[in-house]
C-alpha cells in the first residue's frame, strides 16, 4: 500500500513503456484497460494516460473507456495541445466522484496550454526545472532558480485559470537519474523544495516527481542481493516528503516506504547531497557494490 500522505499517479499506461507501447501498437484496448484496473486496485490516486504521438481521438476514446472501468481521476499526460484538449473534452468528472483530472504537464515554454482550462478545469502539473530567459529556454541549475520559476508559474496559472487555488496546483521540480547526477541536481531539488515549502504564498500547493526516473540506469539489487532501486526511491521520499513532495508519478508494483533514521540507503542519499560531483557518484557506487 502507498505511504500515508503520498498520492501516486500510476504510470503504467505510457507509450514510452515498451510493453505498453506494444498494447498501443496492437490496438489492444483490453490490455490497456487491464492496466487501469490493476493500478486502481493497487491504490493509485490517479491513472496516468500517455498515448505518445498518436491521434487525439485515441486519447478521447481511451479516457472514456478507462472511466468505464475505474472511478479514479485521470492524469492526461501529453505536451500536445490537441491530444490534451481531446482528453479533457472526453473526461467526465462525475465518473470520478467530481474530482478534476490532472494535466501532465505545463512547462514554462508552453504557457498556451493554460488556455485548455476553458474546456474543463484541471489540476496542472507545472514544470519548474526549466525557465524561459530572453525568449530562450534554460535549465534551472540552482534552488533559487527553481523557486523563482515555481512562483512565476503559480502566478501564471492564477492569471490564466480563473478561480484556481493552491490546492489545485502541482509543482514538478524535475527529478534526474541519481546515477548520473554529478552536477548537484538532487541538492537543487531538495533545497528548491525547501524554499517553496517555506513560502506562505505557496502553502498547500502540491509537489510531484516522476520517481521511477530517479533510479533509472541503476541495478535492481545491490551486490548483496538487497533491493536497490525501490530502497533509494524510498530514501528520496523520506527526504522529500517533509519538504512538501506529496505526489509521485510512479509504479504501483513498487513498495515505497519512509525509512528510519540511519537506514543505509538514507545515509547514502544524505551523503550524496552533501558531496560534490564524482565523489557523490562514487558514494552511490560503493553503496551497491
Amino acid at each position, binding site marked *: 500500500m502507498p505511504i500515508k500522505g503520498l498520492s501516486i499517479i500510476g504510470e503504467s499506461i505510457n507509450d*514510452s513503456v515498451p510493453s505498453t507501447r506494444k498494447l498501443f501498437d496492437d490496438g489492444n484496448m483490453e490490455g490497456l484497460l487491464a492496466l487501469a484496473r490493476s493500478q486502481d486496485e493497487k491504490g493509485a490516486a490517479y491513472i496516468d494516460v500517455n498515448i*505518445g504521438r498518436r491521434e487525439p481521438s485515441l486519447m478521447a476514446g481511451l479516457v472514456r473507456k478507462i472511466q468505464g472501468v475505474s472511478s479514479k481521476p485521470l492524469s492526461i499526460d501529453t505536451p500536445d495541445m490537441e491530444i490534451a484538449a481531446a482528453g479533457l473534452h472526453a473526461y467526465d468528472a462525475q465518473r470520478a466522484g467530481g474530482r478534476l483530472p490532472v494535466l501532465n504537464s505545463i512547462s514554462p515554454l508552453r504557457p498556451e496550454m493554460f488556455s485548455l482550462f476553458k474546456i474543463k478545469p484541471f489540476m496542472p502539473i507545472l514544470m519548474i526545472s*526549466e525557465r524561459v530567459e530572453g525568449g530562450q529556454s534554460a535549465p534551472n541549475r540552482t534552488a533559487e532558480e527553481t523557486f523563482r520559476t515555481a512562483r512565476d508559474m503559480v502566478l501564471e496559472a492564477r492569471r490564466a485559470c480563473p478561480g484556481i487555488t493552491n490546492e489545485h496546483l502541482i509543482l514538478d521540480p524535475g527529478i534526474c537519474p541519481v*546515477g*548520473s547526477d554529478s552536477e548537484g541536481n538532487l541538492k537543487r531539488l531538495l533545497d528548491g523544495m525547501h524554499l517553496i515549502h517555506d513560502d506562505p504564498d505557496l502553502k498547500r500547493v502540491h509537489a510531484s516527481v516522476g520517481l521511477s526516473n530517479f533510479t533509472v540506469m541503476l541495478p535492481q539489487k545491490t551486490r548483496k542481493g538487497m533491493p536497490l532501486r525501490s530502497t533509494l526511491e524510498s530514501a528520496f521520499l523520506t527526504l522529500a516528503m517533509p519538504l512538501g513532495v506529496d505526489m509521485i508519478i510512479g509504479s504501483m508494483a513498487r513498495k515505497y516506504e519512509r525509512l528510519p533514521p540511519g537506514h543505509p540507503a538514507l545515509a547514502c542519499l544524505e551523503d550524496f547531497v552533501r558531496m560534490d560531483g564524482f565523489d557523490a557518484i562514487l558514494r552511490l557506487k560503493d553503496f551497491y557494490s
Partner: protein
Amino acid sequence: MSDLQQLYTAVLDGNARASKAIVEQALAEGADPQVLVTQYMIPAMDEVGRRFESNEYFVPELLISARAMKTALQIITPLLTAKGAQPIARVAIGTVKGDLHDIGKNLVSAMLEGGGFQVLDCGVDVAAEKFIEAIKTKQANVVALSALLTTTMPMMKTTIEAFKTAGVRGQIKVIIGGAPVTQKYAEEIGADGYADNASSAVTLARSLVSK
C-alpha cells in the same frame, strides 16, 4: 618500465588518480603515448562498454571509468596532437533545438572520447546552424543528435534537412538516440544509424566511419 596492464585496470576500475600517475610515469620512462591509448586505454573502455551492455556495469561505473580515461587523455592528447596523430573521427554532438536534456548526450560524449573519437560538444538546445558550423570549421565528420522528448524528436529531421540544404550531408554520418527515438525513426528521417545506449553509440560510430 611500469606495468602498463595497471593502466588498463585503472581505467576499467575508474581510478582516475592511478590512471594519471601511471601515464605520467610511463611517459617519463619513454613509453609511446599512442601505444598507451590504443593498447591499454581504449581496450579498457571497450571492456567497460561490454560490461555495461551485459549489466555488470551501470551508469555510475561508466561515468567513473570515463573520467579516469579523460584524466589520462588530458596528458596524452597534446603529445599526440604535436605528433600530428589524427583521431578516429571528429564527432559534433548535441541535443536538438528546443530540448534541454543533457544526460544521455553527456554519457555518449564520454564513451566516444573513451573510444578514441574527438568530441565537439555543441551542448543542448542546439540549432542546425551550430552543427553546420562544426562541420565546416572543425571538420566534424560524424554528427550525433540527441532528443528526449516526443515534441523535440521532429527537430532531428529538421536538422538533417538543414544539412542537406547547406550541402554538407554528404560529408558526414548522422547518428541519433534518446528515449523516444527508434531504429525505425532513424530510417524514416534518413539518419545513418541509431544507438539505444552510450556503449552501442561507440560501436555504431566506429562501423560508420570505417565504411
